[in-house]
């Protein structure tokens, strides 16, 4: 062949050669072995293990919440970038740019709605996912560190949602952030009460850092924008990567190792890989901390296609739900931000309303104290409950299930009772108007709730002798409290933060 002919032949074969060079096997995988190889060798796919335990794919075990979270994040990133094409982060321009997105940008209304509902879905899913991981004991060794990474992801998710909330620059946004920033400055409540604010003012420092000024204005908007589109997405992506990495290295999703494994699916047959009667000899003992990869392939199925179908199902489910919501419900947008006219009632987004209810008693305890206590408490769970039994079983068994229901009942009734007291009788300052602020910081409904829950949890500990049971009790109490306080803040609080049974009873201003 002459050089010219060779050149032309190569040109003609280029499409096929491109395809073959892109795929290591040269073609789409057809056998199980080929699928395993593709999974292992592909940059994106190798994030998954080649084989997945069948029990990890059970819907009723995980409810696909982690996948829903990931899907929401992807949707948020894509819709977020699309919105960035039109959104303008200046106080004169922001509101009108959002109005334009709603009215004239092609598909703008739909995409903005998707972004908003997806954000709410993500926050809801993050709480549910945390509950699922907790109740299945999936924080125990070796997954403790992943639990901590998950807590960081929780904080970043809430941070992303909160920073995004300010960007439309409407009344809802402006006053929610004014309150948020004042919560950030609430350590002043403590430093004022003990008189050291002049020398040590973390509250003022935090507020300055957040707002770039003493008031919510252009500086704040741009800071929140930078956090929302750059800093927090980068952080959350990095930590998500770490989170998935740890899942892999910790042996995949947790499962109940005490029970015998279901058969493995190899090709199109179910096989007992490790015969139940055979024993295996020890070949060597080496020192070191190796990643635990479980007794795969026992009880496993090929990730491609089974895990991928599960992931696809979760992704499409998330997208479908988001689209349905976005079609029927518009993302809220009130009048343009007006510093002279406070919203009444000025409410934080729903996931912070429970905190806002607590904040209405004491800014420091509700805004800084309790969240810190809760976060630290959550972070300690895997290090306090070191019992390796009961992983992969919801509530750890029937005893745990009992503890769960009892704690739920206790949590609900105690918080509702406390709220009934405060609504009808007020609190310390109603009875003793001149009481010093430090007394209120120490003794207010938030601290009372923590005390009541801790007491219950300690009682469960003594009764059952199990740290996990007491953790289940405490977690469930807080979950119940969160639900009640959120409901309180969203439904039963009206203008002037007074109690009303229903929003239709709110007086017009």
């Amino acid at each position, binding site marked *: 062949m002459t050089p010219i002919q060779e050149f032309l032949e190569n040109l003609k074969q280029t499409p096929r050669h491109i395809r073959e060079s892109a795929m290591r096997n040269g073609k789409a995988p057809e056998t199980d072995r080929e699928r395993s190889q593709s999974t292992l060798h592909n940059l994106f796919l190798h994030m998954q293990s080649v084989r997945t335990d069948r029990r990890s794919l059970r819907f009723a075990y995980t409810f696909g919440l982690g996948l829903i979270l990931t899907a929401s994040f992807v949707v948020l990133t894509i819709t977020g970038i699309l919105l960035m094409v039109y959104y303008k982060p200046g106080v004169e321009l922001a509101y009108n740019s959002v109005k334009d997105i709603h009215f004239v940008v092609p598909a703008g209304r739909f995409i903005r709605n998707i972004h908003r509902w997806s954000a709410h879905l993500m926050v809801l899913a993050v709480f549910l996912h945390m509950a699922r991981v907790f109740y299945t004991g999936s924080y125990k060794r070796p997954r403790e560190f992943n639990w901590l990474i998950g807590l960081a992801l929780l904080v970043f998710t809430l941070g992303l949602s909160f920073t995004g909330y300010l960007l439309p620059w409407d009344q809802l946004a402006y006053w929610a952030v004014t309150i948020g920033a004042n919560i950030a400055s609430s350590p002043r409540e403590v430093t004022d009460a003990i008189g050291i604010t002049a020398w040590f003012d973390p509250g003022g420092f935090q507020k300055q850092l957040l707002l770039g*000024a003493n008031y919510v204005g252009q500086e704040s908007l741009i800071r929140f924008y930078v956090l929302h589109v750059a800093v927090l997405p980068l952080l959350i992506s990095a930590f998500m990567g770490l989170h998935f990495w740890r899942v892999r290295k910790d042996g995949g999703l947790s499962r109940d190792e005490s029970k015998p494994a279901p058969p493995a699916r190899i090709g199109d047959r179910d096989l007992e890989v490790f015969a139940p009667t055979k024993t295996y000899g020890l070949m060597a003992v080496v020192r070191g901390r190796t990643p635990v990869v479980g007794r795969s392939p026992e009880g496993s199925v090929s990730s491609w296609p089974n895990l991928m179908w599960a992931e696809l199902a979760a992704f499409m489910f998330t997208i479908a739900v988001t689209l349905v919501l976005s079609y029927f419900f518009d993302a809220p947008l009130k009048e343009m931000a007006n510093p002279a006219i406070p919203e009444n009632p000025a409410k934080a987004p729903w996931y912070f309303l429970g905190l806002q209810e607590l904040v209405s008693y004491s800014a420091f305890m509700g805004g800084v104290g309790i969240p810190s206590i809760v976060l630290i408490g959550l972070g300690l769970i895997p290090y306090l409950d070191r019992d390796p039994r009961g992983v992969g079983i919801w509530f750890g068994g029937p005893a745990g299930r009992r503890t769960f229901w009892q704690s739920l009942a206790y949590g609900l009734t105690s918080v509702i009772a406390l709220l009934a007291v405060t609504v009808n009788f007020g609190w310390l300052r109603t009875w003793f108007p001149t009481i010093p602020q430090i007394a209120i910081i120490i003794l207010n409904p938030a601290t009372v709730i923590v005390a009541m829950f801790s007491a219950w949890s300690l009682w469960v500990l003594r009764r059952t002798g199990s740290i996990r049971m007491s953790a289940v009790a405490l977690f469930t109490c807080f979950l119940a409290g969160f639900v009640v306080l959120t409901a309180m803040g969203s439904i039963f609080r009206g203008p002037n933060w007074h109690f009303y049974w229903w929003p239709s009873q709110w007086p017009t201003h």
Partner: protein
Amino acid sequence: MPDSPKRRDFLGLTALWGVVIAMGTALAGVMRLPKPAVQPGPLRVFKLGDPAQFAVGSTTRVETGGFFLFREEQGFHAISSVCTHLGCVVAHNEGEGFACPCHGSRFSTDGSVVGGPAPAALPWLEIVLSPDGQLQVNAESAVPKGSRFKV
């Protein structure tokens, strides 16, 4: 090969610590950026015109400044209208004091807390006479409760 005894690598140690110190300095410098060196926005000092236009016994709400101006027989005083709980704007009820719509904090006529979650009294703001004879309130500077400004 058995582990050889560790020999101090002075150069290596110095190099590593050098990196740590250099990066640490860089980090410290970078961390300074977000805290503003100068407050944006105009100084919150408000000139309100001739003191004579305020009748004795009058209450004036200065929205832009975020405070109420009172004139009584003993003189002028200005009380901030920003609730000390979470920053909402309080309403003034003649003779009764102030009430915050957001969480129900209540203050007496001199700004002291009488109810609700507010942790501190409403600050009294500094009043002076500007060189051109106008009443001037400095919303960034607080004075002790009870101080009056006499014209």
